[in-house]
């Protein structure tokens, strides 16, 4: 193999499994170390830079980082990254001084954001410090989007949500509540320099089976996201005792748990497929089951059963699936009585307010054609992000889209090519403090994953607002932070210094180092000290070693970043170096003609 190019930031970035998996590339090990030191403000601010809503995300994030976490490959369960994020947010002090400064002198550019969800708020967060005027149109009277209207308060307390959304609005967003945009054409005519569409995917999917539209009185069949919204706004405050939830995604989980708090007793979540195909995150399923919600697999809805125009239950086909659940056969049909049904089978985009003759092209499924790098639509100056861009995802993706769209808007307003993206860069800095002393805690800690404590079941349903998760206590936090393997503290190798003494190879506790003749990747993978069986993880291959011309090969898969290789190396050919990913945000490019990020000075002054 060719020697690994470790000057390409992607190489080390990929080693930090959590950061690589995070859509916003949050510096997870960095903030966990800050928490370990009790520096909660610093940890919060480091988080905020990339993910903008640490308090919200510390409770609700979909956490793609956790399944990726290296710790899983080492002891079976990931670091509780999300819970630690919440610790920083809960324990931080007043950080208002440290928020981006907003220049009093504006740059003369006006940007419209449609919707006040996390995507739009991120755009505002990134553009306001650059001197933009941001006008945000929201159809409802509160900001937050689905985070407010759909995520129940027992998961996300209203205060946490309000604090973090308000911070951005207080940066100077010209927010217009109760202002649904009904015509894109009119909006375009208002002369904004750019428009960001962050309206989400607001339409809940229908279930077209017999009986759906035959109720004569008040309907007892609800669309999940609309029902949750009504609950959030206080329009709905009770439900029947027997509730069927159709679908088994995260929306279904919020519907069943909300039902439990509004009078539901016998609550069943009805799934068509076996458990391993559920869309809901495993922890949401656990939480629902803890609240005695029954999850029933292999039941396909067949029809709503009505008596005298009143819903009395539903019929389901009981299915038997083949091995990979691609084919099913009907075993029998069963009837389940119920008082209410909530449909939670998915969301769709809907853009009835965007005229189709404006140059904004729509593709298949009637969704706009959006560039997945620049988030620009086919009409220059109009950007889409969050659930509005590529269909329903989650908050952290909405934030990631927001950052990228803000960069595009800034480039567009500076008459630069939006396709010229500033690359990700990195810094690497030795953590060596002295003989076998490092700036990080290198010992492996055998603690197992800390379990989140919940409010007791007997007290939990007193109100819809009572937050279920109690957060980590100090002991749990202290143990959990030490489970992080510091994957950003990289083993950096300098081939010219190696004398091939084998010391690093002998000491490595996971046998991930080998000195061998070079060869192609498959050959190398097979002949390492311990064969490298996880092709998703890279092999590091050094330049030819000075004494024998062989190469040092490292399998990144289960390196625990213990630093023993560097401690044993007599020549410091190995060093433990802190990798920091530099993520460019709007305004970080020196090329732009309008004021630079987080500074009231113009570019010419800065130069």
């Amino acid at each position, binding site marked *: 193999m060719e020697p690994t190019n470790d000057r390409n930031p992607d190489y080390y970035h990929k080693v930090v499994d959590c950061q690589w998996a995070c859509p916003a590339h949050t510096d997870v090990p960095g903030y966990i170390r800050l928490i370990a030191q009790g520096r909660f403000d610093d940890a919060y601010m480091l988080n905020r830079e990339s993910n903008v809503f640490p308090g919200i995300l510390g409770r609700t994030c979909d956490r793609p980082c956790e399944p990726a976490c290296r710790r899983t490959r080492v002891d079976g369960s990931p670091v509780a990254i999300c819970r630690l994020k919440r610790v920083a947010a809960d324990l931080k002090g007043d950080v208002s001084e440290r928020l981006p400064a907003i220049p009093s002198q504006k740059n003369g550019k006006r940007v419209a954001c449609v919707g006040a969800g996390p995507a739009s708020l991120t755009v505002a967060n990134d553009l306001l410090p650059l001197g933009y005027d941001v006008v945000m149109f929201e159809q409802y009277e509160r900001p937050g989007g689905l985070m407010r209207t759909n995520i129940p308060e027992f998961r996300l307390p209203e205060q946490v949500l309000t604090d973090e959304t308000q911070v951005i609005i207080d940066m100077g967003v010209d927010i217009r509540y109760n202002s649904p945009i009904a015509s894109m054409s009119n909006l375009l005519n208002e002369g904004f320099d750019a428009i960001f569409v962050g309206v989400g995917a607001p339409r809940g999917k229908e279930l077209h089976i017999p009986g759906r539209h035959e109720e004569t009185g008040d309907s007892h069949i609800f669309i999940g996201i609309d029902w949750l919204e009504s609950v959030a706004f206080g329009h709905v405050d009770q439900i029947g005792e027997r509730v069927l939830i159709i679908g088994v995604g995260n929306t279904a989980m919020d519907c069943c748990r909300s039902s439990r708090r509004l009078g539901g007793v016998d609550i069943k979540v009805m799934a068509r497929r076996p458990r391993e195909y559920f869309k809901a995150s495993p922890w949401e399923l656990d939480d629902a089951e803890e609240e005695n919600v029954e999850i029933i697999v292999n039941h396909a809805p067949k029809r709503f059963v009505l008596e005298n125009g009143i819903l009395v239950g539903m019929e389901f086909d009981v299915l038997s699936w083949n091995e990979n659940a691609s084919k099913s056969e009907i075993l029998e049909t069963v009837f389940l009585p119920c008082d209410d049904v909530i449909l939670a089978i998915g969301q769709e985009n809907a853009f009835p307010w965007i005229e189709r003759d404006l140059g904004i092209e729509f593709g298949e499924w009637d969704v706009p054609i959006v560039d997945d790098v620049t988030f620009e639509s086919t009409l220059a100056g109009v950007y889409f992000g969050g659930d509005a861009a590529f269909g329903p995802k989650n908050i952290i993706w909405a934030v990631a889209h927001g950052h990228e769209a803000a960069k595009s808007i800034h480039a567009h307003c500076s008459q630069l090519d939006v396709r010229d993206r500033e690359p990700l860069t990195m810094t690497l800095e030795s953590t060596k403090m002295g003989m076998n002393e490092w700036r990080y805690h290198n010992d492996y800690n055998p603690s197992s994953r800390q379990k989140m404590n919940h409010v007791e079941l007997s007290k939990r349903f007193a109100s819809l607002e009572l937050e279920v998760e109690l957060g980590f206590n100090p002991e749990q936090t202290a143990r959990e932070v030490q489970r992080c393997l510091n994957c950003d503290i990289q083993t950096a190798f300098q081939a010219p210094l190696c004398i091939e003494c084998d010391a690093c190879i002998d000491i490595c506790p996971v046998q991930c180092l080998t000195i061998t003749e070079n060869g192609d990747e498959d050959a190398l993978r097979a002949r390492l000290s311990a064969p490298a069986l996880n092709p998703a993880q890279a092999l590091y291959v050094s330049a030819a070693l000075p004494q024998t011309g062989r190469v040092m090969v490292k399998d990144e898969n289960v390196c625990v970043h213990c630093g023993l290789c560097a401690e*044993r190396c007599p020549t410091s050919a190995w060093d433990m170096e802190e990798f920091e990913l530099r993520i460019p945000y709007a305004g970080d490019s020196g090329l732009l003609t309008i004021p630079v990020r987080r500074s009231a000075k113009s570019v010419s002054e800065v130069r």
Partner: protein
Amino acid sequence: MTSIAKPVIPLVALPKNELGLSIRDYEGAISTLCAGCGHDSVTAAISHAFWELSTPPHMIAKLSGIGCSSKTPTYFVRGAHGFNSAHGRMATIATGANAANRELTYIGISGDGDSLSIGLGHLAHAIRRNVNMVYVIENNGVYGLTKGQFSASADIGSRLKKGEANAMAPIDPVLLSLSMGATFLARSFSGDKAQLVPLLEAAVAHNGFALIDVISPCVTFNDHEGSTKSYRFMREHEVKEIETDFVPIRKEIRRSIADNDATEVTMHDGSVVRFRSVPEGYDPYDRQKVEDYIRTRQDRGEIVTGLLYVNEYAADVHALNNTPLQGLNSVPYEKLCPGSDALTKMQQSFR
């Protein structure tokens, strides 16, 4: 010494030997030697060899004298018996232990100082007695532990770190042992586990005294330009014309397949040492030829490594002394020490 002990990582699946043990079960305490010391690599090779042979840890006895090298038994096979003796006395303790319990596998670790200066007499007699043991000399040309004075294995002209050159002729433990009738002689290099591990395994299988002289650089005091026992010097001057495979008993041939006419030595336990390549005219049973070969190469400034000489048919210490088949430790006390009556009787017989 490292700041932390080598951690055990639960999910990292390391291969298991016939006893169900992983190599981690053949490790010992964390080494306190200098980072990069050749001795640590020899330690790793020993762990590997015993692991691969599936020797039960409690059936191993590890012995040593004094020196950095002599500290290393602490760093391998923590479950083995051990004896850290006085400077240069490892061979004598090993001889006694072997007499008492012939069931164990004995491995002695020594240094060039420990073996070739203060312990030379004891080494000589262990060879003479053909004590059934593996005797490893971790040879770095200096007294590492006492801060790098020349040892008796330092080559003429080799320099200390500060520049002084050695003027005295070295003692070569291989040539010395060859002339004294040793029955298994090998030389190797700490930086070459591919060679060292099978040599150690063959040495364990050998019936009698098996000496391996391992050039093992002292990174702190003898790894500089003027040294003839440095990593670089070894890489430039090592000659590996003699290549052997070790085929353990009851195992398929794992290492590369040999020619049909390769020389094979069947060890007493049934395992096989197979010479994959030897220089033309070389005969690993012929002392005279072996000595000529080593000397000729030495005169050219080359260091030959590999299994240099083997004689599997010589009588070992037990055969020579006609000891009982079970270890002395399991002979009933009354038999071992028949009492004063028996003594008097014996003395009478000499009158």
